[in-house]
């Protein structure tokens, strides 16, 4: 028997043992059984590591007798893609998923060796049950270590669309995000089982939730970058079912990150937070179901199979058990919620949750509606990007507006005077920006709503920072830069959160810019001919050809001019992969902060030497990527330990009114 396969078989036994012992140990209060279950969980992690190492070794040593290796690699595949072929096929991606899940489980167990001992048996049981599910798939349904009856001389190679830098980091990021969502879920379920429904489980999983959100954000963004560079249609988000699958848990996780603050501060929304945690986990499983099942066609489904029923079964069981536990504990979860005023941070967070979950539902609804239509009417329909854009654009703008309003409204109660003091200046700045845009000739409905709203949010954040910095300057006499650094450092959650909001605003600006003001042109040129787009003149200077054992390249040379000055030379490519024989498009981009000039070589006729190009000018698209960087920075700041104490905050507030933090 293959060592990897043996490791997975023993891994399944260990995982099942871990589930049984942790549950029995938890219910019968046998610490030794719980400890044994945890040891079995560590063993499962070790065995999964052995299985992954075995598959990796087979890949890098080109063991084409192994079906997986023959299907997803070749001798000419560069070493980095040979390694990432680990998740390029279905069996490998499930194994990689299991590795992340068992690793996360091991870290959670290590973190909680001395803490949360009453919750841990059930946390272990939930995480290891998920591992059991994946191990069952890997042992019985889609085993990765199948041998062929013969040894092919060469492998069929990795799908060329996956041979891209972003595909090396997009799936791991997304998997880490998906899998980490299981941690707050496991603690939530443990809280329901034990009846320890206070905020311990919330505080324990806060960083894990942020961690999951961080990687879900990165995963979505890396996927968008991949689509932008590889699919060559000038866009980065097509509302494809697989994209939607990754987006939905991000939305509910974002809602949870906001509403959980209300539970932490006021012990409210316990039921709602539990619902969000369960929903986010179920959506990660649903997302995997969408990718694997083939129920809904997708350009991203590289590894479709008949795994759908298994995932839907697991999803149904997880949903039923979670719901039953929730209903069982409902009386204890219901708190005597109170609110001092309708105008408060709590209210804005509730509306923010409503819109985030509303968008998640709209995405879910649009994704499954074709299936629903076929069931109900027997008619196949398409729910494409225009539907998602039309439904989500207004909801997105409301969300953007709430992003601006929320931080400016005080917790508990905000009097009209404070609302006016906090909201009027940023609102005036946003309004003024709208007037300027209108005067400058902007006539787009969405542009005239979105940009001023973005400016409003940004102005509010700047105002918040300004007040904080001024307060520190007045009390401690720091210079503005030091005051800014200390301000963030002393209340990382709040000011890190604002940085994340800046990133979100940048993304909204990019989405508006590329949706409303995109320019595009298709031209067929002979050598030395030119065409103009977006203030550039583009001259076609001929075709270069190159061939390697792996790929044949057809590379056009385009000189980019502004006036008479050469500002760039772009070389869009057609690539012809030799195994499997498949052409791909490699776009060439001149990226500036204002706009991307995005060039695609469509075709080339050897006889006439005519080349056809698609050219796009995507305004503000770089804000999408930089917005991602800003979000990452903000999240890292928010996750860092330490910060200001409640006493310090209260003291500072006592001296300087209600919205500052000093030492």
């Amino acid at each position: 028997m293959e060592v990897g396969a043996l490791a997975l078989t023993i891994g399944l036994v260990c995982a099942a043992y871990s589930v049984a012992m942790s549950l029995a140990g938890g219910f019968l209060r046998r610490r030794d059984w719980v400890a044994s279950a945890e040891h079995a969980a560590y063993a499962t992690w070790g065995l999964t590591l052995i299985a992954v190492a075995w598959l990796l070794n087979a890949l890098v040593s080109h063991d084409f007798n192994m079906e997986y290796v023959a299907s997803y690699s070749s001798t000419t595949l560069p070493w980095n893609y040979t390694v990432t072929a680990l998740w390029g096929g279905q069996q490998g991606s499930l194994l990689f998923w299991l590795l992340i899940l068992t690793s996360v489980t091991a870290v959670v167990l290590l973190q909680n060796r001395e803490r949360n001992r009453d919750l841990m048996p059930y946390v272990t049981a939930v995480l290891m049950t998920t591992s059991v599910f994946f191990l069952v798939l890997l042992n019985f349904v889609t085993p990765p270590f199948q041998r062929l009856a013969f040894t092919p001389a060469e492998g069929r190679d990795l799908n060329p669309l996956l041979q891209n830098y972003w595909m090396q980091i997009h799936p791991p990021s997304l998997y880490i995000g998906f899998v980490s969502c299981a941690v707050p879920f496991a603690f939530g379920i443990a809280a329901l089982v034990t009846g320890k429904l206070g905020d311990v489980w919330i505080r324990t999983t806060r960083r894990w939730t942020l961690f999951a959100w961080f990687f879900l954000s990165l995963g979505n963004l890396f996927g968008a970058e991949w689509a932008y560079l590889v699919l060559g249609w000038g866009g980065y988000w097509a509302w494809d079912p697989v994209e939607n699958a990754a987006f939905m848990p991000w939305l509910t996780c974002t809602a949870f990150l906001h509403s959980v603050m209300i539970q932490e501060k006021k012990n409210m929304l316990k039921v709602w937070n539990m619902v969000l945690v369960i929903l986010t986990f179920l959506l990660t499983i649903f997302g995997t179901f969408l990718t694997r099942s083939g129920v809904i066609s997708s350009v991203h489904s590289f590894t479709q199979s008949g795994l759908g029923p298994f995932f839907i079964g697991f999803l149904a069981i997880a949903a039923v058990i979670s719901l039953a536990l929730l209903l069982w504990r409902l009386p204890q979860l219901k708190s005597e919620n109170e609110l001092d005023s309708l105008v408060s941070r709590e209210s804005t967070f509730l509306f923010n949750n409503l819109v985030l979950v509303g968008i998640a539902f709209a995405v879910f609804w649009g994704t499954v509606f074709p299936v629903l239509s076929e069931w109900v009417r027997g008619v196949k329909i398409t729910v494409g990007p225009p539907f998602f854009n039309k439904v989500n654009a207004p909801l997105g703008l409301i969300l953007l507006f709430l992003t601006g309003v929320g931080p400016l409204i005080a917790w508990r109660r905000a009097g009209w005077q404070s609302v006016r003091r906090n909201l009027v200046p940023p609102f005036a700045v946003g309004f003024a920006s709208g007037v300027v845009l209108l005067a400058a000739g902007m006539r787009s409905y969405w542009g005239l709503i979105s940009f001023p709203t973005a400016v409003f949010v940004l102005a509010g954040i700047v105002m918040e920072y300004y007040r904080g910095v001024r307060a520190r300057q007045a009390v401690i006499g720091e210079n503005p830069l030091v005051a800014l650094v200390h301000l963030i450092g002393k209340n990382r959650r709040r000011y890190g959160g604002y940085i994340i909001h800046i990133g979100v605003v940048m993304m909204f600006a990019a989405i508006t810019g590329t949706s409303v003001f995109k320019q595009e042109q298709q031209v067929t040129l002979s050598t030395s001919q030119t065409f103009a787009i977006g203030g550039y003149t583009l001259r076609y200077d001929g075709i270069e050809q190159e061939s390697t054992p792996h790929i044949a390249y057809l590379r056009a040379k385009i000189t980019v001019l502004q006036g008479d000055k050469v500002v760039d030379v772009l070389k869009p490519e057609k690539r012809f992969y030799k195994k499997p024989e498949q052409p791909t498009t490699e776009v060439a981009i001149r990226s500036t902060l204002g706009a991307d000039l995005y060039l695609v070589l469509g075709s080339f006729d050897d006889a006439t030497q005519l080349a056809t190009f698609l050219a796009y000018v995507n305004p503000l698209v770089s804000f999408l990527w930089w917005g991602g960087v800003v979000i990452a920075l903000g999240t890292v700041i928010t996750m860092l330990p330490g910060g200001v104490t409640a006493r310090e905050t209260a003291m500072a507030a006592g001296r300087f009114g209600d919205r500052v933090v000093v030492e």
Partner: protein
Amino acid sequence: MPRSSHPLVSMLVVALLLIPAALRADAPTFQEIEESLTCQCGCGLTVHSCNHLGCGSALPLRAEIREQMSQGKDKPAILAHFVEKYGEKILSSPTTKGFNLTAWVTPFALVALGGTFVIFTLMRWRSRSHVQRSGTPADPHASAQTEYEKILERELKEFDT
């Protein structure tokens, strides 16, 4: 509404009045019809966005759009032609008739319903807070509680982050 909120409201009203004036009311264009149709090559994109030059689906569909437009048909008539020929799946969005209408209405109806629920919940919580704050006259500790709550209120206000 207190006087203090007037500047906000005024700006909002002016903004809402100005924006419709800026709207474009162009007639349907070739691109709009392209975007209303889904390419059948499996790319999942609209006919407009499909970048497969030489695409066996997008190219004939574009030619057909031009041919239909040259007959002077308006957008609904052109889309009706495509639906009749290729079936409803050719449309990039569900129609707004019959069962398909639920695709469009449900998300907004749910958000509206959720919004109403949130507003009622908030009002219930606030009234509960007011009831508790008022206390009962027969309660011998009421005045002490009120005094304590006043202090708590003030400290919590100051504690605001």
